[in-house]
């Protein structure tokens, strides 16, 4: 991991809304609607944080089908653990994520063909 990436991760985790999204979506997958409600933030705020969290693979998204036929996205947390180690004049950041769903990995592989 480069220093820039580490800085970005630390900045992201410093953000109060990013943290509450991670916490809320770690329990069960959540739509932006519910995240807006639970995190007490505006939808644009939630969208911006989700974009940044998805970029780091801290959350994953997938489609959910409403009974009335409308698709909407739900988000679920993949971040499991961040370890910071300081030793020998260096700081090291280690991130652990939950395994990606095989169906999503398969889709990504096939679409990238």
């Amino acid at each position, binding site marked *: 991991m480069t220093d820039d990436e580490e800085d970005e991760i630390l900045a992201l985790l410093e953000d109060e809304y990013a943290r509450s999204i991670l916490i809320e979506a770690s329990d069960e997958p959540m739509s932006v609607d519910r995240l807006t409600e639970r995190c007490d933030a505006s939808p644009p705020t939630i969208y911006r944080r989700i974009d940044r969290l998805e970029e780091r693979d801290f959350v994953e998204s997938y489609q959910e*089908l409403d009974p009335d036929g409308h698709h*909407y996205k739900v988000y679920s947390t993949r971040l499991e653990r961040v370890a910071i180690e300081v030793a020998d004049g260096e700081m090291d950041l280690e991130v652990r994520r939950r395994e990606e769903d095989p169906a999503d990995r398969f*889709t990504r592989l096939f*679409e990238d063909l």
Partner: protein
Amino acid sequence: MNVDARTTAGSVAATATFDEWTTIFLVGAASAILGAIVAWTAYRGYVRNDSRPMLFLAIGVVFLTTVPFVLSYTIDLLLSATDAQVLLSITACHLLGLLAIVRSFKRPNRSRPRDRP
């Protein structure tokens, strides 16, 4: 003595034939089940990511693996079909499956799925 030997040989041959059919069934069932797992994963990929290629891939895999296996053991029971008809239906399934996979190569202009506000 001779009769005994023949009887034994006969039953051995019968057992061997039985084992071959069992093996064919088991190997066929294994590919049918694995095919179903791959197809189910692809189908979930379609549902979760709204990806039409994955839907066609799922259809293709299931028609190449699971459907022909099930047909080969059920069609003559249901319709008392001839061997040729069974073979034709299986070959037709393979063709359908491959057509679905060819179709899955077509990539839509991927518009990002709409987020719900």
